[in-house]
């Protein structure tokens, strides 16, 4: 899918001052395949909170319109 969707989701998280870390799934084929099976979600990027899939880019874009969703995301402290 390329880095474009990942850049977009990172941009959205930054806009909302979310505290997150990233893992490049291109670096590890086991993780790349394992996460798809674990979450029954076939594509990347994937955003997780407390071990649970929140969604891919489309889902996150939609969810970020909802203030109670934004509220539950951990925020940067700066």
């Amino acid at each position, binding site marked *: *899918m*390329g880095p*474009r*969707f990942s850049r*977009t989701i990172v941009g959205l998280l930054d806009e909302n001052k979310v505290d997150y870390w990233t893992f490049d799934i291109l670096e590890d084929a086991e993780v790349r395949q394992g996460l798809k099976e674990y979450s*029954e*979600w*076939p*594509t990347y990027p994937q955003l997780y909170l407390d071990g649970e*899939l*929140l*969604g*891919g880019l*489309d*889902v996150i*874009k*939609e*969810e970020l319109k909802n203030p109670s969703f934004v509220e539950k995301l951990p925020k940067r402290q700066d």
Partner: protein
Amino acid sequence: MFVTRCLRNMTSRTEIIRNLLTEKFKPTLLEVKCESDQHNVPKGSEMHFYVGVISDEFNGLSILQRHRQISKLVYEQVPGIHALRIHAKSPSEVSDLSDAPDAPKCLGGSRR
């Protein structure tokens, strides 16, 4: 690709996806568009799609659950799809698909 198209009787992927979604979700409104012409892939590739679905089947389901149902169906039944943009609503939420987001701009490059 030639053999696949013959087996499918020259039905396009757009039509296949449309039929799958219609059968499963009985939507009140459905849009299926191939967006591969916006990407750096050979002409005629049917690899990137946008689907907009309004259906009562989505009542009470979270956004994630809706997207998971749609993507599971499409990725399992239509091999070779590279990307799927999804917009899934129930009739109680919207009357049409005009609030669906546009495709993000392709910045070129098809490195996987």
